[in-house]
């Protein structure tokens, strides 16, 4: 279980004399084992910051983060990360990238080949084992990054807009793909996105964040049946959730019809 309690992160002002920036403000959140939680919000609302805190790249100014009752103080393999920026290593092949976590853990490049082969197959990367990352399409690169995170069997999978750079069709393929993997391995997932539909499609719960300062505005439990089909986005229930989230994210001036008139 992940427990985020009253966590704030403040960045000092980047210009002289400016005000410090509150990137994450008093966030409370618990994520159960095996749960799929998505975090949705506009650009700059502190999603990446929250994920960096969970990963242990940065320390909160206030509050505390615990995983299974142990405080998170540094990055570690029990909390694997799929990054927003491309982060595959171009000096390694697809196979070596996937095996990277095992290579580091076991201190040798000679790691369990059968396990890697089966991961390659699960990820639909057969035939590309010896390609370099830059020889793959964007969707395949993300699959390699996910494979690299999953192969070490982390307790938690932290994903930062992993499909943000993909076209609509590839993205929805990748969503179904991620759900099928999750159905098999059931890791705890914290998935950051700015796409409201993606957030609902994947989640058990959706955390809605708003910017300046970065706060949790609402948490919705999504009780749509699994497995979720592609046409779910057209259903009435789905759009009910979507309406609720958009209502929270709506820019403030539009909330007041008098000022519009």
């Amino acid at each position, binding site marked *: 279980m992940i427990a985020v309690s009253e966590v704030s992160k403040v960045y000092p002002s980047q210009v002289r004399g400016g005000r410090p920036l509150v990137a994450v403000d008093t966030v409370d959140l618990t994520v159960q084992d095996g749960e799929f939680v998505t975090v949705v919000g506009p650009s700059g609302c502190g999603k990446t910051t929250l994920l960096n805190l969970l990963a242990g*790249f940065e320390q909160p100014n206030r509050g505390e983060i615990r995983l299974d009752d142990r405080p998170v103080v*540094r990055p570690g393999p029990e909390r694997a*990360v799929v990054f927003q920026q491309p982060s595959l290593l171009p000096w390694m092949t697809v196979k070596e990238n996937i095996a*990277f976590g095992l290579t*580091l853990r076991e201190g040798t490049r000679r790691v369990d080949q059968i396990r890697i082969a089966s991961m390659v197959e699960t990820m*639909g990367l057969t035939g590309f084992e010896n*390609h370099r990352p830059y020889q793959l399409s964007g969707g395949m690169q993300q699959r390699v990054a996910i494979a690299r995170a999953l192969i070490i069997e982390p307790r938690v999978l932290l994903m930062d807009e992993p499909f943000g750079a993909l076209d609509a069709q590839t993205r929805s393929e990748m969503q*179904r793909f991620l759900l*099928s993997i999750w159905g098999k391995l059931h890791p705890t997932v914290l998935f950051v996105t700015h796409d409201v539909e993606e957030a609902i499609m994947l989640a058990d719960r959706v955390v809605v964040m708003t910017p300046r300062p970065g706060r949790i505005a609402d948490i919705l439990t999504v009780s749509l049946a699994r*497995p979720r089909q592609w046409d779910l986005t057209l259903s009435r229930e789905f759009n009910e959730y979507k309406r609720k989230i958009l209502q929270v994210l709506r820019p403030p001036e539009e909330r007041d019809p008098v000022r519009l008139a």
Partner: protein
Amino acid sequence: MAYSMKAQADEDALLREESSLAEESLDLKSAQKHRHLYVSWLVAVALILLWWLVTAVHVFPPLDLPSPLHVAKDIYAISTTGYNGYSLLDNIGASTLRIAVGFFAAVILGVPIGFWMASNTIIFNAIDPVLQFLRPIPPLAYIPLMVLWFGTGQMSKFVLIFFCTIPMIIISAMSGVKSAQESRLRVAQVFGANRRQMFRYITLPSALPEIFTGMRIAIAVAWTCLVAAEMIAAQSGLGAMILTAGNQLRVGVVFVGIIFIGLIGYLMEVVIRTVERRMVPWKGKA
């Protein structure tokens, strides 16, 4: 399951096809590159033709600017009977040896020093002022000191080349380390890399492209230093040959020296480029 195996297999086949198509277009690209090599040859031939034209219409007196044919004859003469007691091959060998020893010593010492400076502020603060102080000093200024300290033998030339090239190697290694991307360092942190693994799998490969660039610049600088060194205190070597020939007004021999310095410098660049392509195939792609 949402994601059917059949669909997956179809997609795989499609992607594999795509990738073989991509390889084809890659082949096409390299084929184009290959064709473009003619341009280099064309320019070389054009330059020689131009040179010949200038000599044919006597813009300069033949003693000041020998014709290509004359220089070709000089090349033949120096290769067979030698000049000033040394054959062309002797001179090439002597110069190349000096460059190779000085340059490799600079790489072998400079790369670790650069890495060390990048990883430790105290070391950086200790070495950087000395480095920046030495950098603007022209190599010619060192020569009297080199002769005094290391004599007129090989050692003084090795040391000079070493001093001329090592700053560039150190700086490129240092800035190479700093060019390692934050997200890649974080990947290794997540997987629990220790310092040694961090260096081996992230920092070193990240630094390689810049180190190669530094080496390519350094090898050209090494030649300019070498010629300076050989002009003061050497019997053999291409630089010494040029100086002697200049004093005896043998302009043809001067040309031979210039041409071979250029050719060997070019060859060394090509060698480094080839090694670079093999060791850093991802350069410019990620």
